[in-house]
Structure formats: structure tokens, C-alpha cells
């Protein structure tokens, strides 16, 4: 429906993956440091 269409637009946006992967990197860093 509307929300899944929005979700597809978001994951299809190359910009989205920049902060997403940076966030994953940050979480991995936190786990490694703690």
C-alpha cells in the first residue's frame, strides 16, 4: 500500500544508504569498544 511504496522509495534512494551504513559502523564500533 502507501507505506510500502514509501519504503521502496526510501531504500531505492542511494542517499539513504550513506547514513544507514555509517550508523551500522558506529554501532559496531560501540560494541567493539564496550
Amino acid at each position, binding site marked *: 500500500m502507501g507505506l510500502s511504496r*514509501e519504503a521502496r522509495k*526510501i531504500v531505492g534512494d542511494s542517499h539513504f544508504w550513506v*547514513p544507514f551504513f555509517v*550508523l551500522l559502523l*558506529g554501532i559496531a564500533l*560501540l560494541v567493539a*569498544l*564496550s
Partner: protein
Amino acid sequence: MGSVVKGMEKKGLSLHALGVICGLTAGVWLGAAEAPTKLVTAGYSPFAISLCMVAGVFTARWTFPTLLKGTGYVFTDLWERKHLIVWALLAGALWAVANTLTVFAIRDVGLAVAFPLWNMNSLIGLIWGRVLFCELKGASAKNIGKVVVGAVAIVVAAVLLGFSTLHGGTAMGSHALSGIIAAIGASLMWGTMYVPYRKAYLSGMNPLSFVTAFTVGELGTVLALTLALDGGTHSSAFQLLHVRGAVFWLFLGGFMWVIGDLFQQFATKYLGIGRGIPLSNTNQLWGLAWGALVFGELASADRAHKLLVVAGSIVMILGALAISTAVASAREESSTNEAVLRECNRYGLDYNATIASMGGDEFSDRSQRKRWWDYAILAAATGVFLWLGIRAVVPPLQMDGRWIAVLGLVLVVSLAVGTWSLWRRTRFS
């Protein structure tokens, strides 16, 4: 700031000047937000301090949008661009992870080394601004030079000011390398956090709406990190919430931080991240001013350290001046419009309305009427602060009352100028 204010015409304050005013005001308030947290000296874990501060941020975050626009406006704005809710949550999570990384950095290498490292976030933002949003594309070589040199100058100044607070007794921990990695990680997180900010404003969202969703991601992530990494439900954070007298200062720090961050959001909207972040990073100058003048943190500093303060302050002011005078040309603005067009095409937004919104104009006759629950939210938030305030205990720290008055006046004046400029030019849009 005065020279910028002079440049105002009747309702004709340029968006660049408005962004500069917002960026500098953000610096003043973000720097001052550190002051109340200095009053909490008991041995609580950094997670506990961070969680209480973010709880204050959360309380204050909902107050301003409700007061200025009403929840009806905010939720309509969010619903019209639902995809940005995800971006706002992502930005809040990035903030929370970055903030926690700084805790590790401070623990391992000390604030003086860690602060300049994570302050490099402005350079990260500059790169993302150029790569993702065409910032500085089409700008003259002179303007590119001003922005890049200005941003680098502010980072150099941050290093100088950071080392001015480094005393002989400050030792590097045995985990210096992990501390440095944590600080660089925080810099990367914070520099990247501005990507969602800019994304939202290129889509015509009001910063007041964006922060309302942002703060949910922020509080949720800090809470999750505290539970996961600080002893779960046994974390000292939950004990601290019951400590009379201490929590108010952390809430107050969070409240001041929210004001600074709101202006930072408007600076990002009207200047872009390449120019906006370095300007709000002048907060280190104001943080140092509070530390040195009110709390006497440089009282025992020698001549070399004082020289670092003077040199760092001058370099930072020159850096801010360089960026403030780099007004975007028509060619650069047309590149920004291309970035707006990309967002409109991808997410089905109205291009003309979005461009109008980017210029600070309301793009609809959306209701700003306050409902009863708006007043209930305002009353609840005010009640929380009053309830904590009357229980607040001022710890026996030596503080200079005259400098509190002077720096307090700077806060009030900057807030008045920033608020008036935003109201006059954009009605907080």
C-alpha cells in the same frame, strides 16, 4: 553578528544572512549548554548523564514546535513527507551513537584531544554536502576558498582551544588508540547526521517538524544503548532520575541544547551543511568562555595556554567571518535547485511549493490553530521543569556571578536577534 543585522532591509533580510545569524546563535547556545552539566559532579556513569540530558532534550523538543506552530501543523507536515520520518529517526540514532562514542573518547584520551577530533565533523559535512547535494557546485573559486578555508580554520581553532585546556596532569589513558578511534567515529557520525537534516530541508520540511521526529530516534537509541551497554535496568541512569537536585541541571543543559540545535537546523536549511555546520561549531568558543570565565577553569593556566586561547579564538572568528561572507551565487543556487528537483522527482513533491518553502515561505494555508492538547503539552513540559527546578540544589562550586550575568546577556540577546530574524523573514518556516 552585528554587521549581518545591519544588512537587513525591511522584511528583506537575505536568506544567507538569516542562516548566518542562526548558525552563530546556535554556537552561543550549544556552547552554553555545557555549563549546567558541570554542576553535576557526582560519580554517575556517562551513560546516565547522557540519558538524563536527552530526557530533558525530549521534553523541550516537543515544547517549541507546539508553542510556535501547534501539533496539528507539525503532524500534517510530517505526514505530507512521510519518508522523512525515517530520515529523522535515522538522524536521531546517529546523534545518539555519536554522543556515546564521545563518552568513550573522553574516557580514553580526555576532552582536550577528543573535542577537536570530533569537531572535524564539519569537514565530513562539507564532503557530503558536495557529493550528495551539489553544495558549492557552480560557486566561484573565491567562495569555495572562503568556505573550505573557513571550515578548516574553525577545526584548527578547535585544536588550539582544546589544547588550551590540556594541563600537565591530564594523562592519556592506556586505551589511547581506541579513544582516538571513538572520537573519529563520533566525527563521522555527526558529520553524516547532517545528511538527513539537509535532505529534509531540500524537501521543504519545516525544521520544527523534523526535530519532533528526530528526538524520538534520539531518546529511543540512547535508552537502548544505556540498557545494552550500561548494566541494563541496573544502570545508574535510573537511580540518577531519583536524585533530588541533580536532574534539573541536566534537563536545563538539554533545554539549552535544544534551542541551539533548533537554530542549527535553520542554519542548515538556509545555508546548507557546508556553511551551516562550521558556524554552529563555534560553540567551542562559548563553551570555553563559560568554563574559563564562570568556572575559572583556566585560573592556573600559564602564559602559553592563555596564548592558545587568544590564538584559537581569533582563528575561529576569522573562519566564521570567511564563511559568513561566502554568499551563494546564482549559479550555485541553481545547483541547489537541481538537488531539490531530484527530491521532488523521487518522492513526488511539488517542485514550486518546495522551492517556495526553501525560501522560507509557507506553501499552504495549513492551520496553526492550537488545540487543547497543545496547551496540555506546554503545561506538562513547563510543569516538569518547574517541579525539578524547585528541587534543584546548587552544588558548592565556585562561580563568577558577574560573568554569569554577562554571558547570560549574550544568550538573551542572541536568542532575541535569532528569533526576531526568523519570525520576520520566515515566520519560523
